[in-house]
């Protein structure tokens, strides 16, 4: 590069911008025009559904008994419990989250390979909130042309108050969004009260501010920039889509050669015009500011608003709708030659996604339905490994952890099988030997007990089982344990006497 100098003959075109700043471009503001049609209606319906769900769900109640949270969906980080209606997840259940994430990822792959980026266009929070913010903008500042006129001309009092009002409404929605986010992690009614009385704590105010700010900035200001420059998902689409995926497609075989209606009607030169009247409706409707007629491209989020815009225009000029439609590249190539191909939804990749999803669902359902509300874990004393007591018998100590996942206090019966003449006692009352120990554990808690097992000296170690039974529900579990004797302890280098 250093060899090239100005004295050399060059075929350089004049750069539009000089120097460093040529590598950066001004933000081209997108002014999407309002459209109406089937896709727009569907998008409104999904928006109402998604946002309604998001804002209302924390207020659903679910009775779990005294001392338990009564919020239907609650991710209680402080107490390490996730509640989903009648399901309750403990930290050790976190692998369900893995299953859920695998399902979500596979679902996304499946839908994308079938219908393109419908997630991006219809359900992604960025799209949904941007849609809502654009609605507010349109109601206050007017539609595309009026907004462009306002921004291009001098600031007037009318424009000023409208802009202030718009940002105020945006901030209000953003705050509501950030506040609702917190309610998934803390009891909704009480956190609202604490929030407004100033007792909610730094974390709550901090996160509310964070989500308010990000909602306002991402949906109000960044918009399509998020999809084009921040989100990794568009970069995946070339790997996810193939010739059989239904994507938003301009049917160029039918539309070209495009020309304005006037030019088409005054066609004196004998041009073979297609159906596209080059009205620009698809471009002005696009929330990411692209021209779908250029074909599939990275910024296209597959929202289909250009379809509504085009259908409206076609209807106006009395031509058949569907010039822009969901179709596959393969079908389009065939139709251009006059062949109609059937939809090809079941193909190796979708079948693989489907089977992987069914495996994941099956595993999840089996795991969920076999979820125990009881758990026993046993930690054997390490020092000393065993103790010889006055009557010559051997004693081992165990720390017993009993998990009670039910919502009631329960007494758990701890027994043991596998050693003759053995007896058990609680560490605090070690002389009170019992065949069964009754361990009370509070609702939704883990009880920790130190239990002593005494048995005659057989020298070697003995395998045995701790058995645990919830005396209220009858649910049982077993833990395979070892009773250490002097021989094993001598091998292990531990124990005394």
């Amino acid at each position, binding site marked *: *590069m*250093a060899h*090239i*100098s*100005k004295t050399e003959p*060059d*075929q*350089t*075109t004049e*750069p*539009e911008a000089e120097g460093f*700043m*040529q*590598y*950066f*471009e*001004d*933000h081209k503001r997108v002014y999407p025009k309002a459209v109406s049609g089937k896709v727009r209606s569907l998008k409104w319906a999904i928006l109402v559904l998604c946002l309604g769900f998001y804002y209302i769900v924390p207020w659903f109640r679910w009775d779990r008994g005294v001392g338990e949270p009564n919020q239907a969906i609650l991710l209680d980080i402080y107490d390490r419990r996730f509640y989903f209606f009648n399901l309750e997840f403990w930290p050790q259940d976190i692998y369900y989250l893995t299953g859920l994430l695998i399902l979500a990822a596979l679902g996304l792959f499946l839908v994308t390979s079938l219908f393109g980026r419908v997630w991006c266009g219809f359900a992604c929070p960025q799209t949904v909130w941007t849609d809502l913010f654009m609605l507010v903008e349109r109601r206050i500042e007017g539609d595309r042309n009026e907004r462009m006129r306002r921004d291009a001309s001098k600031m007037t009092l009318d424009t000023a108050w409208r802009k202030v009002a718009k940002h105020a409404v945006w901030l209000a929605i953003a705050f509501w969004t950030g506040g609702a986010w917190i309610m998934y992690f803390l009891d909704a009614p009480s956190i609202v009260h604490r929030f407004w009385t100033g007792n909610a704590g730094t974390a709550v105010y901090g996160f509310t501010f964070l989500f308010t700010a990000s909602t306002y900035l991402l949906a109000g200001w960044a918009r399509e*920039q998020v999809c084009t*420059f921040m989100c990794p998902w568009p970069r995946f689409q070339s790997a996810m889509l193939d010739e059989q995926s239904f994507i938003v497609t301009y049917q160029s075989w039918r539309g070209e050669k495009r020309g304005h209606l006037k030019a088409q009607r005054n066609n004196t030169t004998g041009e073979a015009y297609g159906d596209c009247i080059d009205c620009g409706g698809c471009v002005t409707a696009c929330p990411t500011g692209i021209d779908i007629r250029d074909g599939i491209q990275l910024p296209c989020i597959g929202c289909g608003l250009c379809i509504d815009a085009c259908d409206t225009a076609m209807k106006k000029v009395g031509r058949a709708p569907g010039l822009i439609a969901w179709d596959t590249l393969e079908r389009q190539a065939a139709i251009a030659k006059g062949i109609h191909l059937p939809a090809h939804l079941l193909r190796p990749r979708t079948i693989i996604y489907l089977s992987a999803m069914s495996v994941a669902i099956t595993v999840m359902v089996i795991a969920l339905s076999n979820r125990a509300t009881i758990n026993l874990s046993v930690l054997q*004393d*390490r*020092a*000393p490994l065993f*103790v*010889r*007591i*006055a*009557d*010559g018998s051997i*004693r081992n*100590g165990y720390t017993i952890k009993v998990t009670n996942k039910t919502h009631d206090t329960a007494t758990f019966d701890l027994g043991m099988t596998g050693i003759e003449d053995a007896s058990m006692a609680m*560490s*605090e009352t*070690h*002389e009170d030997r019992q065949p069964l120990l009754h361990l009370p554990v509070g609702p939704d808690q883990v009880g920790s007990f*130190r239990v*002593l097992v005494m048995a005659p000296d057989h020298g070697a170690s003995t395998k045995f089982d701790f058995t645990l039974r919830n005396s209220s529900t009858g649910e049982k579990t077993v833990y395979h344990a070892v009773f250490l004797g002097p021989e094993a302890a001598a091998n292990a280098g531990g*124990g*005394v*006497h």
Partner: protein
Amino acid sequence: MALNIQRDEHTGTDTTGHEWDGLKELNTPLPKWWLYTWLACIVWALVYFVFFPSFPYGKGYIHGLLGASTRNDVMADVKGFAAERNAVMSKVAAASFEDIRKNPDLLAAAQTAGRITFANNCQPCHGAGGAGNPGFPALAAGSWLWGGKLEDIQQTITHGIRSGDADARDSQMPKFGTDGLLKPEEIQQVADYVSTAFFGLALKDAAPASIAAGKEIFTANCVSCHGEKGEGNRDVGGPRLASKVHLYGGTRELIVRQVTAPHMSVMPNWNGRLDTATIKSVAIYVHDLGGGE
């Protein structure tokens, strides 16, 4: 440096003007807000540089205007925890063992303090978890010389055994052999008796006559402390012989040695080294090892 900016025919995009061995890069400009965000991050870093510790020099560093220090934060936390701990431990000191048992918070604090203090101070002799060592009592075994109730254990820890403290536990076993109180063959006889009657040892070559003679010697010299049935006597610290747990070993040879020239080990008094609350905590910990009464 001259830039040889060209237009790429295929995409209609300008190149950046650089060329590397024939490779040219298309200029697809980033949005300007991206640049400004990057610059804002640099400004933010500079602000950090001014307000927070940033740069080392020699033995010190630039502290920053806010004087933030994670070490000071930790020290403040430690101070706070110490205050919390002192508040709980003063309650432990004042409460009776019974009340500590009833209060889960006090009990948890005492158990933790006891466990840590035991590991730091008692474990070298008594073993981890009170397993004991030859010559040092196994506290988990429930074989007590001076009593295994919480108050007894507290008393023993506070004043020690043969420690020189005025209230120390004290017991002396006569040196029957070295002081000439018993003849060597009498010691052999009493060892035969103790081995068979209390230790449960099956001696092959012990003559019944020897055992009978040993019993008489035992009755005359030993029962005052060890009891007629070898049950021991806690008032004077007389060890229980009718047991499988023996401080100085459970063989006949060791009985002979102990009668001839007894071991009498010392436990230090902890009253000058540990405060009352800590001693009570250790007592609770030792009691709960599995041998407490």
